[in-house]
Each structure stands twice: as C-alpha cells, then as structure tokens.
C-alpha cells in the first residue's frame, strides 16, 4: 500500500480519535451539567459526585460508541478519497490490487500514490469537525453554567401588610376582659401580671396601624399570659407525678386532684365524689398488714410527688397534701387528723375498723381545705386560658396548646385545649361543646357585653313580638321559631350536663 495512503489513514485515525473524544466529552459534560442543573433547581435529586460520575461514564460510553461509529475501513477511506479529490478511482484500484504483481499494477500503485501525495493532507477528514467542536462547546457551556448558575432564592411571597385599626367594640371587649381578669380569683401576682399584659396589649393595639404590628403585639401578650398561666398552675405537675406511681390509690388521688374535669356548676360535688373514690380505694385491703403497707406506700408517693413537682411549699395544696401523708394532729376540741403514715403506724394498735374510721375523719377534716387549694389552681388556669381564648376570638390569633395532665387525654379524649372545649368563662374549665350561657357577647342594643343567655332571651322576646305584629308568612314564622328552638336546644344540653 502506498506511503501516502498510510499517512492519510493515520491522519484519519487521529481525527477519528479527536472526534470521539470531542463527542464523548461534549455529551458527558452536557449530561453532567444537566444533572447538576436539575438537582440545583430541585427537579431531580442528584448529588454532585453522582452527577459527575454519570458524566464520566457517559464520556467513556459515548466516546467509545462514536469511535466505533466513525470506523472507516480502508476501502471506505479509499472511496472517499477518490470521490473527494476526483482521483479517478486510483486509490480504490490500488487497494483492491495491492497484492497483484505486474508492471501495470506497480505503475498503477505509483500513480495512485503520486496522486495522493498531491492531496492537501490538512484538509482531509476535518470535514464536519466543526460540528464536534460546537457540540463540545455547548457541553462545556452547560457544564460551566451548572457551577455558575444557582437557583434564585425564591423570596417569600410578599404578603401585603393590611392596615389595622382597632375598633371601638374590640377596645370595649378588651377592657371587659381586663376587668374580668382583675376581678377574678386568680392568685397574685399572676393576676396582676396577666392584667398588665392585657393593658400593654390594649395600648399597643391602639397604636398599631398594620396587621403585622397587631399580630406581633398579640403574640407577645399571648406568650406572657401563657407563661403566667403555667406558673400559676403547678398542680398539673403534681398530678402527673402522682400518676406515675404504681399504686392504684395514688393514681386515684391524682385523678381526684384533676380540676380540669370539674364541671362549672358543681365542682365541689365532683371533687367530693373523686375523694370518696380515693377513700374507697384505700379501704379495699383486708388485713392490717396490707393496710400498713398501702398507707405507707401512698404516703411516701405523696411526699415524693410533692418534692418532684415545682409546687411551692407554701402553696395550700402542698400543705394539705403533706398533712394527708404525714399529719399527726390532735386539736383542742379532741378531733384528730392522722396522715397515712401515722395511720399506718397506729393501725396495729387501732385495729382495722378504727383505722378506717380515723382515715375517714382525716379525709373529712382535709376535704374542704383540699378543695379550696385546688380551686385556686383551677381559677388560675381558667382565668389565664379564658383570657387567651377571648383574645383569639376577638382578634383571630392562634391559640397555644393548653397543657393537661397525662391521664386527662385518656379520660376525656381531648387535650387540645381549643377554644371549643374551653369556652366556659370565669374559670370554668372543660365542659361540653355547647356555647355556654355565661359567655359574654356584645349586645348592639346596649353597646355592652352581656351574658349570652340574657341576650338570647331578649332577642327571642323581640322576635316573638315582631312575629305577632308583622306580615310574616307562616313558613317564615316557623323558620324563625325553629332557629330559636335550635339555640335554646343548646341551652338544654348544657343544663343537662
């Protein structure tokens, strides 16, 4: 084969290699760049390492594929050379008869080689090389862009700050709420603190001109009231501590302290019933020995729980429970108060019957003190939560999650503390979903907040009078009466509870 043909073949091979590398790198860079961009813009999840690894694999695969795709046999190259440079099939003939001997064949080979020598070698095979270079540049550009570009930080949607101006009704309602707190039985200094927070809120809301300012003020007030409510309700931790013990009597005592379940109207009766349950639980043992063990156990549970909880030692609840656990008192009138540990020690001397009698006497003596101590906590919690609920109603702000004892959820099925379950005003905690008759609502006739039940009666009387005097159809009259029946029906449900 001619020397010049070999040179051209070698050149074609080099260019084929160059094209393969360019094509492989172009597609690999494009692929890696696209993956990086897609992952940057969160269309696909690819780590940069994985994207680069895929790009490298594509470079190898594509390069190899293009190398084989661009494979040119000697025959094809000869054909191409003949056609491209109008060599009158000299190269093809040279190749076809390369092994033939004879003067004509030799002359033919010389002639073909001489013709190839005249071919401008630099022009050969570079045909369409620009396409590969262009592809490479595109790939490189995309790859570079994947590093340079970064997704624009999507600014949070600009919520136009709506103008805000507190209404007269809201001011009146807030002042009413402050008055309610100030006149409540909430313990000091929590009451004053909550009231001060509300005063501050009122001042800030009067000055607020935008919704964001209003929200900020409300949030601050809510946080402050929530904190004061928590601080004033340390009985909650005590209940949780008592609930954590194994003894059923201790658990029963924890439940008995749960003022969150007290109904509005007859909290005392409910409490008495719960205490009786504790008493009954303590009387379930048969022997003196068992009584001794149980009493000691419950006594130590109470003592430990008081220590574990954050309840102040001066808190009446702490005092009365300490007495229930360890008292050994004999009053001037001869009445005795024996705590559980004392009774445990005396039980052998007293015998089972007297022990139970002394236990009853103790519970009777401490009953009112315990109720009083718990009522204070109930008042604290109720006032704080009522204040937050009213703020939520008045200004539409989010209510925090009110805390409840651990066993509360299992016993009531609702620990959310949402406004729906805590509507009871004036310290009323828990209760049903019926809108309470003692809720304060605004009366547009008197421009004052009055109890819901009062205004309902008033409106019903007005409506009834109008129904009698006007030209309403029977159907319209029936609809209105039905509406009030539904409203009064709500009262009926609450009364029943």
């Amino acid at each position: 084969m001619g020397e010049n043909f070999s040179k051209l073949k070698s050149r074609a091979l080099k260019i084929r290699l160059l094209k393969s590398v360019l094509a492989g790198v172009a597609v690999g860079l494009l692929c890696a760049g696209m993956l990086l961009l897609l992952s940057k813009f969160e269309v696909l999840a690819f780590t940069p390492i994985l994207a680069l690894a895929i790009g490298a694999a594509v470079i190898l695969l594509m390069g190899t594929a293009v190398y084989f795709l661009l494979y040119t046999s000697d025959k094809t190259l000869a054909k191409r050379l003949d056609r491209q440079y109008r060599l009158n099939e000299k190269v093809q003939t040279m190749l076809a008869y390369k092994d033939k001997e004879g003067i004509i064949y030799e002359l033919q080979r010389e002639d073909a080689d001489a013709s190839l020598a005249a071919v401008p070698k630099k022009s050969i095979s570079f045909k369409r090389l620009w396409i590969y270079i262009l592809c490479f540049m595109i790939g490189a550009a995309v790859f570079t862009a994947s590093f340079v570009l970064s997704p624009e930080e999507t600014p949070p949607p600009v919520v136009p700050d709506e103008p805000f101006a507190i209404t007269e009704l809201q001011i009146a309602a807030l002042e009413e709420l402050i008055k309610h707190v100030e006149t409540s039985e909430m313990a000091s200094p929590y009451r004053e603190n909550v009231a001060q927070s509300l005063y501050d809120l009122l001042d800030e809301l009067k000055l607020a001109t935008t919704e964001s300012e209003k929200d900020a003020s409300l949030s601050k007030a809510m946080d402050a009231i929530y904190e004061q409510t928590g601080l004033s309700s340390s009985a909650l931790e005590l209940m949780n501590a008592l609930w954590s013990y194994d003894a059923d009597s201790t658990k029963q005592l924890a439940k008995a302290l749960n003022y969150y379940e007290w109904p509005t109207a007859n909290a005392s009766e409910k409490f008495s019933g719960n205490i009786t349950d504790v008493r009954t639980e303590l009387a379930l043992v048969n022997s003196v020995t068992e009584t001794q063990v149980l009493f000691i156990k419950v006594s130590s549970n109470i003592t430990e729980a008081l220590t574990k909880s954050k309840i102040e030692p001066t808190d009446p609840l702490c005092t009365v429970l300490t007495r229930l656990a360890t008292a050994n008192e004999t009053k001037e009138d001869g009445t005795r108060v024996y705590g559980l540990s004392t009774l445990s020690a005396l039980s052998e001397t007293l015998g089972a019957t007297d022990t139970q009698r002394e236990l009853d006497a103790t519970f009777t003596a401490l009953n009112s003190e315990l109720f009083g101590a718990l009522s204070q906590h109930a008042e604290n919690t109720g006032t704080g939560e009522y204040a937050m609920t009213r703020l939520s109603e008045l200004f539409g702000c989010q209510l925090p999650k009110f805390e409840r004892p651990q066993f509360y959820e299992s016993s009531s099925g609702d620990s959310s503390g949402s406004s729906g379950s805590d509507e009871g005003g004036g310290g009323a905690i828990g209760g049903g979903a019926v809108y309470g008759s003692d809720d304060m609502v605004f009366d547009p006739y008197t421009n004052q907040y009055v109890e819901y039940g009062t205004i309902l009666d008033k409106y019903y009387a007005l409506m009834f009078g109008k129904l009698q005097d006007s030209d309403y159809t029977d159907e319209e009259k029936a609809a209105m009466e039905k509406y009030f029946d539904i409203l009064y029906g709500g009262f009926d449900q609450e009364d029943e509870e």
Partner: protein
Amino acid sequence: MNHTENNTAEMERVKMFSEKVAKVKSELKKDVVGQTDIIENVIIAIVAGGNVLLEGVPGVGKTRLVRSLGKVLSLPFSRIQFTPDLMPSDVTGTNIVEKDENGKLVTKFRPGPIFANLVLADEINRATPKTQSAMLEVMQEHKVTVANTSYKIDEPFFVLATENPIEQDGTYPLPEAQMDRFMFKLIVGFPSAEELSSIVKMTQITMAETAEAVINGKEILDMRALASAVPVVDEVLSYTVNLVSNTHPELETSTASTKKYVKYGASPRAAQGLITAAKVRALMSGRYNVSYEDINALAYPVLRHRIKINYTAINDKLTVDDVISMIIKETKKVR
C-alpha cells in the same frame, strides 16, 4: 527470461503504447481537421479490437479518416463500396473453378475484399440485408465460411463502416444483430467554420492523404494485450454492468428514464465493449486503472446504436444520447 527482464519488457511496452498513440494521433491530424474525439475513439476501438460505425452527413471526412487510418496503421487495407447490387460473395470471396498445373479442373477459393486487416465498409446501409449479413461472422469471429470451409482472417482485423443518416431512399437499416457487432457508433459532426476553412485550404494543395505508417499489426496486438491488463476495480465493474442493465426497460431495476423512453436495451456485448474500451482509454489518458469517468465517456459511442428509443422519446424530442445521459445520471445516484 527472468523477472527483471520481464519487467523491462513490460515497461518498454507501456512506453511504446503512449508513443504509438501519440504518433497515430499526430499522423491522423495531418489528414483530418478537427474531429479530435472521433480520432480518439477510433484509436480506442482499434486498440481494443472493436469495429466502428461512423455516421455522418456526406463530406465530413468519414472515408478520409478511415483511408488515412489505413495508411497510418501500415496494414493491408481494403475498401468496399456498399451498393444495393453488392452480393455477399463480392464481400467474402467465392470459390471459382480453374485448371491446376496438370490441367485438371479444381475449385479454388478467391478471397473477397474482406480479407484485409482494415476494411472500410463505405455506406454500409446501402447494401441489402443479405449482403450486410455476410459481414456478421467476419466481424465477430474474424473468419469467413464459404461452402462449408472457414477461412481465418489475419489479426488484427477491423471493420470501419460509414453510413449516411439523411438519405433514406434505397437504404437498408442495419439489423440489430449487425449493429451489435460494432463496438462504437461515432457521430461525425459537421466541422466548425474554422475547421472547414482549414479543410478547404488543405485540399487546395492535395486531395491525397499524407499520413505515414507509424504502427504495424504486431504493435497493435501488443498494445491490446497491454490494455487488457489494466485493472478494473469491482465497484467500477458493477457500475458498468448496472449501467448496461439499466438500459433494459423490462427489468424492474432499470431507471425511470429507461422505462419511459427505451424500447429495448443493450446486449451484454455492450458491457464487454465498455470495459475493454475503458481500459484502453485509461491507458491513453496516462492512467493505469479504469474509472467511472472512462465508463461514462464511452457509454455514448458504445450504447447509442445498441439501444432503441421509443416513440415517447421521439415525441419529447429526445435523442438517444439524451436518454443515455439520463440513464447515466440515474445510475450514478445509486453508485
């Protein structure tokens, strides 16, 4: 003779080929003004061993070319003027009865004018088909059979015939079989004004041909042998075969032009003739291989008398050469 001596001899032949072709051309140009392509193709046919049919109006130098060629070739030359009353025996020769040395009557074959190396069949289409047919055997097989006896004609042997395309009265179109025996049909065109002027000037001096013999029969045979060794690559060979096949309208693979304009196509002799002539043309061009260009250039003289165009082509005012151009173009596309 060893390998080196062989190569030297071969080189001499190659060298001689170019020289001889140049000399023949040069000598012919002394008597024939212009007509370069015709001279070129006639030389190709002679070296390739093919017969040539020259077609042209009277006075364009057909006969002069052939006569001049007869001189240049330094070969026994005979001229047969074809006329309607020419008999086959007038061409081939006949057995005559004569007395031998002993006075006995014996039959003796008297060769006709065909027994020459270069035969000029002037106005061949004026002879009757019967007489024309007498040429068939000799043109193809280079022998004459008379009374069951075959007489070999010395090589090289060529028939160069002429015909006039205008005068149709009293002419007999050559049968296809005979046409196929001609390797080339060359159309001798009317000379240009310049050429005509040169012709007039030249003939004022002398009407006789001035060309001199520069090549003999052996040398022509050597040249032929050399040309036959010129390599043809398979692709070119396939193209040649396709080109000839594409002239057949009955073949499904033939081109659209063929199907539309051709009545019947060329015989296998066309493909043989194309390749043989292309080898000579390549060597004459200083090349040692056959190219597509050789095939395309020779397709016209080789195919134009072998294919017959139909009425549609005539109606579309197309000549055979136009149709050949179309077939070449369409065959090139699938090359």
